[in-house]
């Protein structure tokens, strides 16, 4: 009888512990769900700016007087390649961090096979931890950004990268980010940040001759190109952020379901144990009574 009661107590304790874990995962699921909505809104809110700046850049690029901008022209020799990896600050987001790191590794491998050196810029604590554990060099890392990216964060990151590109420290810059296609599908992707590709700026309508420029188109473009690069960085951060929250929501939803199944199985086991304990007790009483009456 004592053994049965102990088993029962252990089972109840396990059920309690699984139940409190389930509460946590469920709360995380709800939080992630609300963050996805917010992140999607941020992507939407940034769209008018994206459309406008792209159009103005295209039109300006057709002005003959603009000439070559350093951020628009390819470096003659590709020796060192900058790779920006955008990961999350925290885990518990399913395969989100692993996927983007794997994508980045593939890119790095390709570049290294082509005989180029790679310089890493890292956004998010997870990638930073992974790379320092692997003993790889990181040019600079930023944390506390991906949960809710602000434009100022993107501007700061872009500023560093533009400075390195302008100084000839890196000859091309890739960004590895996660593209948010839908709540169910997030795709690790790569985009070329620098130099800004010519085809991105092709197809501008140009300006009518009576246009008033203040200051000259050349100076204007000089001011706008960094803005454009910052904006691309911002968009990549927003996409990654939405993807991270979506991955986390899915992972936590699965965890909550699994906890539910576990609780069900354990409860069944506990009921069986309780029944067994009662049966034992009854048969003990019955046999005790019989022993007395026959005596």
């Amino acid at each position: 009888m004592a053994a049965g009661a102990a088993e029962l107590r252990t089972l109840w304790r396990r059920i309690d512990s699984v139940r409190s874990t389930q509460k946590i995962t469920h709360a995380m699921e709800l939080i992630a769900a609300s963050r996805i909505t917010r992140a999607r809104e941020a992507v939407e809110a940034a769209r008018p700016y994206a459309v406008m700046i792209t159009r103005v850049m295209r039109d300006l690029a057709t002005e003959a007087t603009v000439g070559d901008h350093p951020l628009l022209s390819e470096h003659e020799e590709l020796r060192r390649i900058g790779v920006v990896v955008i990961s999350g600050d925290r885990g518990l987001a399913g395969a989100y961090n692993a996927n983007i790191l794997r994508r980045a590794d593939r890119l790095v491998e390709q570049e290294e096979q082509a005989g180029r050196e790679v310089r890493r810029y890292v956004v998010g604590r997870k990638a930073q931890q992974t790379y320092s554990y692997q003993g790889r060099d990181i040019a600079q890392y930023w944390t506390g950004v991906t949960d809710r990216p602000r434009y100022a964060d993107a501007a700061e990151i872009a500023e560093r990268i533009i400075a390195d590109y302008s100084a000839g420290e890196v000859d091309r810059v890739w960004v590895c980010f996660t593209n948010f296609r839908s709540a169910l599908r997030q795709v690790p992707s790569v985009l070329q940040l620098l130099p800004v590709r010519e085809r991105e700026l092709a197809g501008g309508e140009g300006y009518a001759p009576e246009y008033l420029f203040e200051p000259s188109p050349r100076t204007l473009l000089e001011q706008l190109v960094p803005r454009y690069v910052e904006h691309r960085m911002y968009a990549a951060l927003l996409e990654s952020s939405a993807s991270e929250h979506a991955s986390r929501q899915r992972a936590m939803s699965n965890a909550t379901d699994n906890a539910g199944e576990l609780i069900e199985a354990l409860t069944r086991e506990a009921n069986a144990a309780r029944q067994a304990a009662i049966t034992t007790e009854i048969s003990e009483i019955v046999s005790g009574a019989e022993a007395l009456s026959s005596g």
Partner: protein
Amino acid sequence: MAEATFQVDVVSAERELFSGESTGVYARGVEGDIGLLPGHQPALVLLGHAPVRVKRPDGDQVRIAVHNGFLECRGDELTVLADLAELAVEIDVDRARAARARAVRQLEQAETDEDAERARDALARADLRLGLVGAEASS
């Protein structure tokens, strides 16, 4: 006769601040103040840290602080694009004052050109905010 109006959008990288009809837009460009009325010659104007005033048909004015932006006017449309922009009504005066004091201190202590540049930038931002809401720099 009603005044002529044109469509004005003020858009920052993070959100849209204003979208609607207007009878005139006044801004400070890097090369001087500029006022644009409907039917203005098409223009592309760079703005530094600049106050922008958008006049609405009912005579009200919307005042906006624009940091690192530019303005494009084409025909019956005018767009102000900015890294960062704030409506005057959203500006926190106490915070702007504190930021200004901090910037002044940083400017005095700046050791490198880069630090000084950053401090001057912060100072310009704070001054723009305070100027727009009509608050004194100190009080």
